[in-house]
């Protein structure tokens, strides 16, 4: 953190818009490089590791009683018959211009960005992932709003009422939230709200565009469950940060100016408190869009996390690669957005 702050003082010039643009472009190039590295590593893991252990990688993907023809067919389909660099090249080419696959009776075109065809259902992985994305994005968006409000709110109150009973209860609850597995809170909430109280439908995904009320009704439990887990972390983080900030000299200065407490806390203390939280939030949100495997499993949501799980269970290499790249993309993008926001929030940070 310290490294990117410039505390030199008077020499600093305000950031020029063009400099910011240049910075973003440079960062976007970094994103591409990062994704290339991630794809290489993923590629390497799935193709090199079996080679190192002396196994033909194609055998990871063939089913029971595979005939030699089936093995060869899959080998050609996955491109395993070509040298590694060529396989990787083809993969990248597919992303840029798309690829054609033989179906036996014809040719199936996998349009760019083509991440290959899923071994499970012969569908382009890209299409599967983009159709799963709204589900995970809905889950992540709702949950994150909830946990920000809950976590930051209770954390801040806790910090202001340090050592009070409310503070202790909040922190114990937060500890429980961090410790309890999604399986526990998730299942319990389903049985409580969907079965025992009959307040909510059995969770399943309804698109927002189709039925906004149904969308929210079906997602409210996963939101709460996920938010409970994260809110706990955020409450603790907010409390700790807020306590640090409240000890800062500039808070005393604000009070010395005669500002009322609601401005001292709500404006001066909150703004400083939110900065580290923003960083964590960006990372969490990026990671979450990459897939909330457990939550999606418990609540039967077929999002990206579920796609990853299915891919792993069925040895669906193109799907695993796709999800990995997809998740990596969101994480690095979240990273970039956090850095931009950070610069907007903290004037000491210069985009360089």
């Amino acid at each position, binding site marked *: 953190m310290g490294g990117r702050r410039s505390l030199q003082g008077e020499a600093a010039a305000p950031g020029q818009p063009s400099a910011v643009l240049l910075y973003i472009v440079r960062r976007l190039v970094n994103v591409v490089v990062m994704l290339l590295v991630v794809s290489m590593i993923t590629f390497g893991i799935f193709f090199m590791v079996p080679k190192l252990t002396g196994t033909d990688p194609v055998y990871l993907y063939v089913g029971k009683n595979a005939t030699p023809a089936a093995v060869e067919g899959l080998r050609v389909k996955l491109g395993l018959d070509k040298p590694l660099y060529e396989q990787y090249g083809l993969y990248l080419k597919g992303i840029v211009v798309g690829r054609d696959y033989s179906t036996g009776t014809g040719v199936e075109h996998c349009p760019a960005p083509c991440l290959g065809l899923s071994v499970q259902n012969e569908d382009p992985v890209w299409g599967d992932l983009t159709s799963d994305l709204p589900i995970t994005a809905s889950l992540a968006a709702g949950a994150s709003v909830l946990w920000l409000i809950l976590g930051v709110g209770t954390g801040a109150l806790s910090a202001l009422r340090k050592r009070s009973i409310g503070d202790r209860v909040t922190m114990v609850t937060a500890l429980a939230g961090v410790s309890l597995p999604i399986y526990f809170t998730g299942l319990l909430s389903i049985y409580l709200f969907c079965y025992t109280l009959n307040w909510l439908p059995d969770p399943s995904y309804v698109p927002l565009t189709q039925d906004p009320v149904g969308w929210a009704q079906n997602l409210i439990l996963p939101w709460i469950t996920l938010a409970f887990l994260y809110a706990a972390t955020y409450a603790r983080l907010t409390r700790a940060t807020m306590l640090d900030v409240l000890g800062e000299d500039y808070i005393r200065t604000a009070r010395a*100016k005669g500002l009322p407490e609601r401005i001292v806390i709500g404006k001066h203390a909150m703004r400083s408190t939110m900065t580290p939280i923003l960083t964590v939030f960006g990372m969490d949100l990026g990671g979450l869009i990459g897939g909330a495997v457990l939550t999606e499993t418990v609540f039967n949501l077929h999002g990206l996390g579920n796609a990853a799980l299915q891919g792993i269970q069925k040895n669906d290499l193109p799907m695993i690669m796709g999800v990995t790249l997809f998740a990596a993309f969101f994480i690095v993008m979240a990273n970039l957005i956090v850095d931009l926001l950070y610069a907007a929030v903290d004037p000491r940070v210069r985009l360089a």
Partner: protein
Amino acid sequence: MTKSDSAKTEAVIDVSASSSGAPTSFLSVRNLRCHFPTDDGIVKSVDGLSFDLERGKTLGIVGESGSGKSVTSLSIMGLHRNVGKKRGPQISGEIWLDGQELINANPDEVRKLRGQKMAMIFQDPLTAMHPYYTVGQQITEGHRQHNPQVSKKAAREHAIQLLDRVGIPQPDKRVDQHPHEFSGGMRQRAMIAMALANDPSLLIADEPTTALDVTVQAQILDLIRDLQKEFGSSVIIITHDLGVVAELADDILVMYGGKCVEKGPADKIFTEPEHPYTWGLLGSMPRIDRELQDRLIPVKGNPPSLINLPSGCAFHPRCPYVDRTEGRSTTETPLLTNVGENHLAACHMPLEVRQQIFTQEIAPRL
């Protein structure tokens, strides 16, 4: 305790800390106690402090760190948190500002005085300013808080004027910059501008120059003096360095272990100091006119624990003349006694002995 001692004591109390009615002084602190409960015991940061400050005058409060001088200033400003709560500080006594008592006042009333009638300049301008807001924002914020009728534009103009007045070049540009874009001295000037935003009658400067380069220190002190003349404020300068207040203060109050050990007009404190601790401070003060710099002598030993103050005179473990009081220093707490006009000191040594020691042993070294 002898009878004559107690008579003297009463006389002293009459002077500074007796009547319960509103005093005539602009600022009057009476028998201020500020105790902090901790797990190790009660920290008596300030324990029975009294002083007065007239309008337009400057008081220097001098002492080592931990002597209670900053706690005093925060008490006046009402900046202690959780006062009276279970784990919060216990504050008693009276603080009268322009006829209004502050310790027992409604906290919101005190808040309204802060930044308006009384303002404060802190030691480290870097940490004392919010890193995320521009200097202008931080100046106008306090201004508009107390003057809600002032438009944003007018407040900004006012801020630029203030920055100009405290000597910041290009104030119309600087007003939109953030604290980290200022140098240390500039920051302290901005801090002063912030404090002056509402033309306060009382300005408390807590170690205003400690964090600054020596050359900048003098500029800041000059600025404070000029501003005081211009604005007519009363000023309290808190410092561990007698040199800082030498040319600025009308009166000086020396604190040790949460208590006042000597106070009086500044010239008296410098020329006829009556307390061995004050002698020590003078001895350790760097002076341009001092002939023999190698004889700069720090006060030996460490500041006392505020939880378990030494018995008798709190200074006695560090006092070179403890043997001159026939043991009273270690058992009896010395009281503030008149040693001249408006000049008080708390020491068991007879006045003549002290004057003899000062003229024969101390003065030649200074």
